[in-house]
C-alpha cells in the first residue's frame, strides 16, 4: 500500500516520522472506533443502573466485575490458539452481536432489572477486551522510544472517540424515544473498527527472526507453550517482582477509582433525584467533558511530560492529584452540608473527582502505565497484560466494591432501607460517603508507595534489555594479561642465539618474578646443537626441577655481588669501554642496560643508565627503559618522555613511565601543557596519565581539556574514560565535565554512526553510571531499531533533562530509516 502522508503540521506536532504515517493513522482510527461505542455503552450502563437499581447497590455492580475473570481466562486460551488477527477481528465481531442482543433486551418498556445488571457486566468485559488488545498491538509494533513518541497520537484517537461517543449520547438521549437505540450506533462503529483492524493486519507475517506479533500465525511461535491459560498468566506475573509491582499499582488504582466512582455517582444520583435530569444525557455529556480534558492533557502535555520527566514522575501525577482532591472532597462534604450552597458544592465535588480520575487516568497515567510493559519480553508481556489488564484491573474494581460494602457495614448503612427509601437530598451527606473518602485516601497513599518501587524497578528492567556489560578491551588486556612476563619470555627466546649473557639475565629476571615455571623452562630450553657448550645457563639444565639455582639464597648472593664496590668498579670500566664503542656493540649495550636494572638505584653503574636511554638503537633503549622502570629514578623521566615520540620505542618508554606511577604526574602535566611538544609526545603522555589512573592524573587531563587541549581532545577524553573504567570510585568534578560535554555536543556535527558520539558518551560516563552509559552505547552500535530505542530509553532514565534535550535529537538519526515500523510485523 502506498505510504500516506500526514499534513506537515500534524506530523510535526506528534513527531511522526516518514514511513510511520499509515500505521499511526490506522491505530488512531482503531482506538477512536473502540472508545466511541464504549462511551455510548457506558453512559447507558450508568444511567440504567442508577435509575433502575440505585446508587447504594453499586458496590454489587462493582463486585460483579469478577466475572471478567472468566472472560479473561477465555481470552487467554483463545490467544494461544488463534492468530492475533483472528483474535482481534473475532472480538470485534462478538461485540457487535452482543450490542444487538442487548438492544433487543433493554428497549422493552418493562424489562427485567437483571438485564441491566448483566448489561453492566458485559460493558466491563467489552472495554477490557478491546482496550487490552489495542495496547498489545501497540507494544508489538513499536519499541519504547517510538511508542513514547507516538503514544500521544494514538491516545488522542482514543480520547477523541470517547468524546464523540459521549457527545452523541448526550444529544441523542434527549431526542430519542428510547436511549437504548444508541446501541445500534455503537454496533455500527464497532463494524468500522473491524474494517480498520482488517487493514492493519492484512497480509502481515513475521519477518525472519521476529516474533509473530501480528498476522496469521499464532502469537510468539517460538516460545508459546501448547497451552497458556489464566493460571499460566497469573504464574508469570507472580514469578516477576517487576510484574508484581505493576499488578500492585493496578490493584490499588482500581480500588481508589471504584471508591471515587461511587462517591461521585452517589452525589450525581442525589442531585438528579432533586432536579429530575435525563441521566443518560448527563453521563454522555459528562463523559465527553472529562475526555476533552483528558484529550487536552494528552495532546499538550503527555508526551512532553513523559519525555521530559520520565515514567517515574508520570506515574505519580495521577495519585497525587486524586489525593489532594479527595482531601478537599472530604473537607468540603463535612463543611458544606450546613450551607445553602451544599447542593452545588456536592455536585462540584462529584464532577471534580470523577473528572480528575478520568482525565488523568486516560492521559498521563495510561500512557505511563503502558510504557511500563515495554521492557518486558514479548512472551511474558502478553501473559502479564492478560492477567493484569484484563483480570486484575477488573478484580480491583470488585475489590473496591467489597471495600465499599465494608465501609457501609461500619457506618451503619442498611441496604434494605436504602432499597425501600428514596434517595436523601444532596445536602444530606452520609457518614458512609465521608468514610469512603477517607478510605480512598489511605489506598492512594499505598498506591504512591507502589509507584516509587515500580519506578526504580522500571530502570532496572530497561537496563536488562540493552547490551551486556561494557568493558574496554585495553583495560581487559591490562588487567587480565601479564603482558610484561609475556614480553620477557619472548625476549629470552630471542636472546638465546644472540647472547648467552642476555639469555641468562632474562632467565634470572623470570626466576625473580617467580615466572620460570617448568613449562617456561621447557619452552626456553634450546635444542642441544643450537648453542655452544657452556652457553646454556645452569638454571635450565634440569628443566622441570626447582633446583638450588633459583633459591632465595642465590638471589640474595647475586644482589650482593652486584652491590660490591669491586664489582661496580670493574663493570664501570667495562661499561665505559662499551659506551665508547671499544667493543661489544649493541649486544653489549643491551646486556649492560638490562643488568643495570638489577642493581640498586644509588649504585655508580645505575647513574650511567641515562646514556643508554639516549642510545639510538631501539633494542638498547628497550632494555634501558625496562631498567629505568625498575629503578624509578626521576632523572630518567625526561629521556623516557622524549622517546614517546619515537614509534619504535614508544611502548617501552610508556611501560617504563607507568612504573613510576603517580610520582611523575606533575612532570607529565608539564609535558602535556607544553604546546611546543608535538602531539607525538603529548598524546602518549595523556594516555600515560590514564595508565597511572589516579584522581590527580584525571584532574590534569580535565584541566588540559578545559584549556582546549589543542588537537588532543579525543585522546584526552579517551584517557579520562580509561581512568573511569579502571577506577569507578574516582569522582570527576561534575560542573567541569558537563561544561566539556556542552563543548562536545556543540562541536558534534550530523551523526551518521554511533562512533561519532563516542566522545560524548565517554564524557557522560564520567559523571553518570559508567556501565549504564556504555551499555546504551553498545546498543547504539548494534544499530537496530529496538537496540537504539532501548539505548535512548536507558539514557532517558539516567541523564539530566538539559542534556537529553541536546543529545537525543542527534541520536534519533541512528535508528535505521530503511525499516519502517510496518515492516517489523
Amino acid at each position, binding site marked *: 500500500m502506498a505510504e500516506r502522508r500526514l499534513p506537515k503540521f500534524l506530523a510535526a506536532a506528534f513527531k511522526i516520522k516518514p514511513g510511520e504515517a499509515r500505521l499511526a493513522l490506522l491505530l488512531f482510527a482503531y482506538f477512536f472506533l473502540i472508545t466511541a461505542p464504549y462511551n455510548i455503552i457506558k453512559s447507558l450502563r450508568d444511567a440504567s443502573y442508577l435509575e433502575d437499581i440505585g446508587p447504594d447497590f453499586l458496590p454489587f455492580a462493582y463486585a460483579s466485575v469478577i466475572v471478567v475473570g472468566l472472560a479473561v481466562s477465555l481470552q487467554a486460551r483463545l490467544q494461544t490458539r488463534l492468530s492475533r488477527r483472528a483474535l482481534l477481528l473475532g472480538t470485534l465481531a462478538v461485540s457487535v452481536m452482543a450490542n444487538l442482543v442487548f438492544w433487543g433486551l433493554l428497549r422493552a418498556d418493562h424489562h427485567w432489572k437483571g438485564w441491566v445488571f448483566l448489561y453492566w457486566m458485559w460493558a466491563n468485559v467489552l472495554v477490557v477486551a478491546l482496550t487490552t488488545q489495542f495496547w498489545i498491538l501497540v507494544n508489538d509494533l513499536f519499541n519504547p522510544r517510538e511508542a513514547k513518541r507516538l503514544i500521544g497520537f494514538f491516545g488522542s484517537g482514543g480520547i477523541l472517540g470517547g468524546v464523540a461517543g459521549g457527545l452523541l449520547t448526550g444529544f441523542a438521549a434527549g431526542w430519542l424515544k428510547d436511549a437504548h437505540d444508541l446501541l445500534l450506533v455503537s454496533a455500527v462503529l464497532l463494524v468500522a473498527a473491524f474494517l480498520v483492524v482488517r487493514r492493519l493486519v492484512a497480509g502481515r507475517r513475521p519477518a525472519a527472526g521476529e516474533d509473530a506479533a501480528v498476522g496469521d500465525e499464532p502469537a510468539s511461535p517460538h516460545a508459546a507453550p501448547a497451552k497458556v491459560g489464566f493460571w499460566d498468566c497469573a504464574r508469570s506475573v507472580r514469578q516477576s517482582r517487576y510484574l508484581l509491582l505493576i499488578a500492585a499499582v493496578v490493584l490499588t488504582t482500581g480500588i481508589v477509582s471504584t471508591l471515587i466512582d461511587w462517591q461521585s455517582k452517589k452525589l450525581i444520583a442525589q442531585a438528579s433525584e432533586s432536579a429530575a435530569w435525563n441521566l443518560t444525557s448527563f453521563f454522555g455529556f459528562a463523559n465527553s467533558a472529562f475526555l476533552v480534558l483528558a484529550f487536552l492533557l494528552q495532546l499538550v502535555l503527555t508526551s512532553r511530560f513523559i519525555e521530559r520527566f520520565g515514567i517515574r514522575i508520570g506515574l505519580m501525577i495521577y495519585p497525587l492529584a486524586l489525593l489532594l482532591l479527595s482531601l478537599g472532597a472530604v473537607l468540603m462534604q463535612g463543611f458544606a452540608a450546613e450551607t445553602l450552597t451544599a447542593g452545588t458544592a456536592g455536585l462540584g465535588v462529584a464532577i471534580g473527582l470523577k473528572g480528575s480520575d478520568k482525565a488523568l487516568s486516560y492521559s498521563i497515567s495510561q500512557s505511563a502505565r503502558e510504557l511500563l510493559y515495554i521492557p518486558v519480553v514479548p512472551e511474558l508481556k502478553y501473559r502479564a497484560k492478560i492477567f493484569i489488564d484484563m483480570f486484575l484491573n477488573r478484580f480491583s474494581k470488585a475489590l473496591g466494591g467489597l471495600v465499599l460494602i465494608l465501609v457501609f457495614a461500619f457506618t451503619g448503612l442498611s441496604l434494605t432501607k436504602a432499597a425501600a427509601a428514596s434517595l436523601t437530598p444532596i445536602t444530606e451527606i452520609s457518614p458512609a460517603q465521608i468514610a469512603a473518602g477517607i478510605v480512598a485516601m489511605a489506598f492512594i497513599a499505598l498506591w504512591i508507595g507502589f509507584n516509587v518501587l515500580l519506578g526504580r524497578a522500571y530502570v532496572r528492567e530497561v537496563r536488562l534489555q540493552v547490551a551486556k556489560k561494557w568493558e574496554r578491551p585495553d583495560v581487559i588486556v591490562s588487567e587480565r594479561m601479564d603482558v610484561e612476563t609475556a614480553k620477557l619470555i619472548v625476549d629470552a627466546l630471542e636472546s638465546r642465539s644472540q647472547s648467552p649473557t642476555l639469555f641468562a639475565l632474562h632467565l634470572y629476571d623470570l626466576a625473580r618474578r617467580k615466572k620460570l615455571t617448568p613449562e617456561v623452562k621447557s619452552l626456553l630450553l634450546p635444542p642441544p646443537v643450537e648453542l655452544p657448550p657452556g652457553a646454556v*645457563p645452569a638454571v635450565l639444565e634440569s628443566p622441570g626441577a626447582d633446583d638450588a639455582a633459583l633459591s632465595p639464597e642465590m638471589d640474595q*648472593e647475586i644482589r650482593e*655481588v652486584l652491590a660490591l664496590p669491586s664489582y661496580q668498579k670493574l663493570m664501570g670500566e667495562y661499561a665505559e669501554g662499551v659506551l665508547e664503542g671499544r667493543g661489544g656493540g649493541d649486544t653489549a649495550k643491551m646486556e649492560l642496560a638490562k643488568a643495570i636494572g638489577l642493581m640498586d638505584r644509588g649504585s655508580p653503574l645505575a647513574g650511567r643508565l641515562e646514556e643508554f636511554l639516549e642510545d639510538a638503537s631501539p633494542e638498547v633503549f628497550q632494555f634501558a627503559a625496562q631498567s629505568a622502570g625498575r629503578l624509578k629514578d626521576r632523572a630518567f623521566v625526561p629521556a623516557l618522555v622524549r622517546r614517546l615520540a619515537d614509534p619504535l620505542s614508544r611502548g617501552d618508554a610508556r611501560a617504563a613511565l607507568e612504573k613510576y606511577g603517580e610520582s611523575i604526574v606533575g612532570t607529565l602535566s608539564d609535558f602535556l601543557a607544553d604546546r611546543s611538544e608535538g602531539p607525538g609526545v603529548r598524546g602518549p603522555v595523556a594516555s600515560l596519565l590514564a595508565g597511572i589512573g589516579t584522581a590527580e592524573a584525571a584532574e590534569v587531563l580535565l584541566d588540559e581539556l578545559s584549556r582546549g587541549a589543542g588537537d588532543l581532545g579525543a585522546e584526552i577524553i579517551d584517557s579520562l574514560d580509561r581512568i573511569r573504567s579502571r577506577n569507578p570510585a574516582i569522582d570527576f568534578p561534575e560542573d567541569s565535565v558537563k561544561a566539556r560535554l556542552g563543548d562536545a555536543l556543540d562541536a558534534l556535527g550530523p551523526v551518521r554512526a554511533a562512533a561519532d558520539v563516542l566522545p560524548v558518551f565517554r564524557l557522560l560516563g564520567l559523571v553518570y553510571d559508567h556501565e549504564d552509559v556504555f551499555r546504551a552505547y553498545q546498543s547504539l552500535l548494534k544499530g537496530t531499531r529496538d537496540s537504539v530505542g532501548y539505548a535512548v530509553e536507558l539514557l532517558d532514565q539516567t541523564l539530566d533533562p538539559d542534556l537529553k534535550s541536546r543529545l537525543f535529537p542527534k541520536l534519533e538519526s541512528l535508528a535505521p530509516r530503511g525499516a519502517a515500523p510496518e515492516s517489523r510485523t
Partner: protein
Amino acid sequence: MVIEKREKNNVVIFDIEGEIRRSDITDVTLHQLVKDELELGRKQILLNFEKVDFIDSFGVGEILASYISTHNLGGKLKLARISKKLFLIFQVTMLTKVLDIFDEEDLALRSFLKE
C-alpha cells in the same frame, strides 16, 4: 677454606678447597695471597675452583679484587673449573664478559702461553 699454591709454566696456580664465605675469613685471604704474588712480580695467576663447595658474595668480591689488582699491574688472572652455580652468577652479573673462565686447567694454561 684451604688454599694451596703451585706453579706451572710460569703461572701461579692457587688450588682452593672448601668454602669461600664471609664467616670463614682466615688471616690470609685469597686477595692477599694474589697481592703477595704480584709483589713478587708474578703476574700470571690461575685460580682453580675444582674443590670449592660453596662461594658467597664475599668470595666473589675476593676474586674481583684479585682480578682488579692483577689487571692494574698489567697481569692476567684467570679462573678454571668453577661450579655451574658460580658460572650462572657470573653470567647474570655479566662477569663472564670481564673474567677469563675455563672449564679445564690445561685450557687455561694454554691460554697464558698464547698471550
